[in-house]
């Protein structure tokens, strides 16, 4: 007879000590995750993007957000499949990178799509070109103009609404990602809150889907990955529930 739950792998092929993970693997993964960021900066500065580099920056930061959301969502299922429990130590990092790239994506959009279309942007370029800082009146009117421009876009365009909502779902998760917040909220409530990432996973591909013209293959791919990752959870939960188990905290299976 075997366990009826995530397939338990008795011994993981990767037996690393806590120290090795913390001081060896983790810094490597941390730096590797910054790779796309530095690559984009390098490529933009050296003219290695397309003829429309601003559009590339927007698209690439968006795609990397989706990838990190997928990676974050994959950690628990992969951990259960392989029995390599140390993986959970990378979950926070992956999630924060999703937020990092998501925030870059939002900022890029705000600057190249919205700010660059404001009348005030011309004054900024002139001021900076003349070598002085823009005045307070310009800063204030730009802030107003930008808020209005982004606000209208969020209100008018469903794919922007969805994209912004997706970013919003990540915000509280990033804020409460610290050990202090876990303690303050308590594991149970913290776990519950962090299930918001499932929503991020659904909204992200939807945002992408809505943006493309007719070539839905890529958004579909991300949607499929998320569907599988969320599907395994549903399946595991259901099979668990079908056996009369006394209710208890979901522990780390989020």
């Amino acid at each position, binding site marked *: *007879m*075997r*366990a*009826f*739950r995530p*397939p*338990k792998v008795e011994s993981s092929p990767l037996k690393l000590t806590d120290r090795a993970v913390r001081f060896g693997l983790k810094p490597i993964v941390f730096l590797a995750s910054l790779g796309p960021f530095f*690559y984009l900066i390098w*490529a933009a500065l050296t003219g*290695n*993007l*397309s*003829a*429309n580099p*601003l*559009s*590339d920056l927007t698209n*690439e930061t968006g795609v990397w957000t989706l*990838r990190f959301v*997928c990676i974050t969502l994959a950690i628990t*299922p*992969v951990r259960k499949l392989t029995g390599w429990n140390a993986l*959970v130590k990378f*979950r*926070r990092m992956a999630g924060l990178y999703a937020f990092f790239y998501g925030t870059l994506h939002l900022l890029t959009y705000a600057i*190249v799509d919205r700010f*660059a*279309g404001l009348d005030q*942007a011309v004054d900024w*370029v002139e001021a900076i070109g003349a070598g002085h800082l823009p005045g307070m009146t310009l800063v204030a009117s730009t802030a107003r103009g930008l808020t209005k421009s982004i606000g209208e*876009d969020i209100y008018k*365009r469903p794919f922007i609404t969805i994209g912004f909502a997706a970013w919003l779902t990540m915000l509280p998760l990033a804020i409460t990602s610290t*050990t202090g917040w*876990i303690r303050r909220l308590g*594991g149970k409530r*913290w*776990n519950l809150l962090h299930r918001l990432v499932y929503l991020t996973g659904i909204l992200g591909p939807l945002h992408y889907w809505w943006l493309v*013209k*007719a*070539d*839905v*293959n*890529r958004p579909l*791919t991300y949607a*499929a*990955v998320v569907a*599988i*990752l969320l*599907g*395994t959870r549903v*399946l595991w939960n259901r*099979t*668990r529930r079908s*056996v*009369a*188990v006394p209710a208890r*905290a979901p*522990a*780390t*299976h989020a």
Partner: protein
Amino acid sequence: MLIKRAADIRSSEITDKKLYLNRREFISAAAATTAAVAAGVVGSEGLVQAATPAPHGRKLENVKPSAFSTDEKPNKWEEITTYNNYYEFGIDKDSPSMFARNLKTEPWTVAIDGECAKKGNMPLEDILKGETLEDRIYRHRCVEAWSMVIPWVGFPLANLIKKCEPTSKAKYIEFTTFFDTKQMSARTSAIRYPYVEGLRMDEAMHPLTIMAVGLYGEVIPNQDGAPMRLVVPWKYGFKHIKSINKIKFVEKAPLNTWQDQAANEYGFYANVNPSVDHPRWSQATERRIGEFLRRKTLMFNGYGDQVASLYTGMDLRRNY
């Protein structure tokens, strides 16, 4: 980070082996699919550094300047030949630059059909016979809200139409792009092929409307629609059908490809219009390739003085 130690497996959570194995199989399959799909995504989306500007082609002779040209600064050859849509070669902006080199453009004939006297195959040489090629430096506005200034070389479409001798029933023209899966990668089934576009007869006869066969004084590169493509500067880029191998004179407005794909987003007219947004994005501003600040999009892409009269009395909000 670890919140709570996972409880040990309880005896109540025990099931028979068969069920368990099935589930395990499913999960493994799911994981494998995820990994494969993820690898595919990363592989297919590689960054844009592979774009290759077109090699320079044969210089066109006796090209005359035109009063219709704008004096704005044209975009660079590298920009025009690495950044455009030509879905037959892939959906990325740089795909045409990488995959269009296999397109065979010589010899080239255009099938003339429909409501006209001169039906049949017309070789490109016959089409160009007696034509004076002109430099036409036009603003080009894509429906995706980016724009360029492009120094086309071409001749008025009106001249070609006259050669075909259309009948009085010819109210519209339907154009078709050459399509051959052997020469075109068309790796996605993103849209239906062959690509079809159309113009109303008076639009087609307008002196601004040209058939372009050159770029920067040279033979037009494959990725930009060799050997002959339509240019209608007051309309969005998707009207500018490339590599035309069929022209048909018809009575009713043809169903153009993008309208067929999404009629609520793309219409037949596709006139550049800053006050009619695409349902998913604004058309009020555009990014001129090479610039940071967005420009305000001009009605009819700035060609209103010449073409606005074609649409008198028409509701351009409905006829987008």
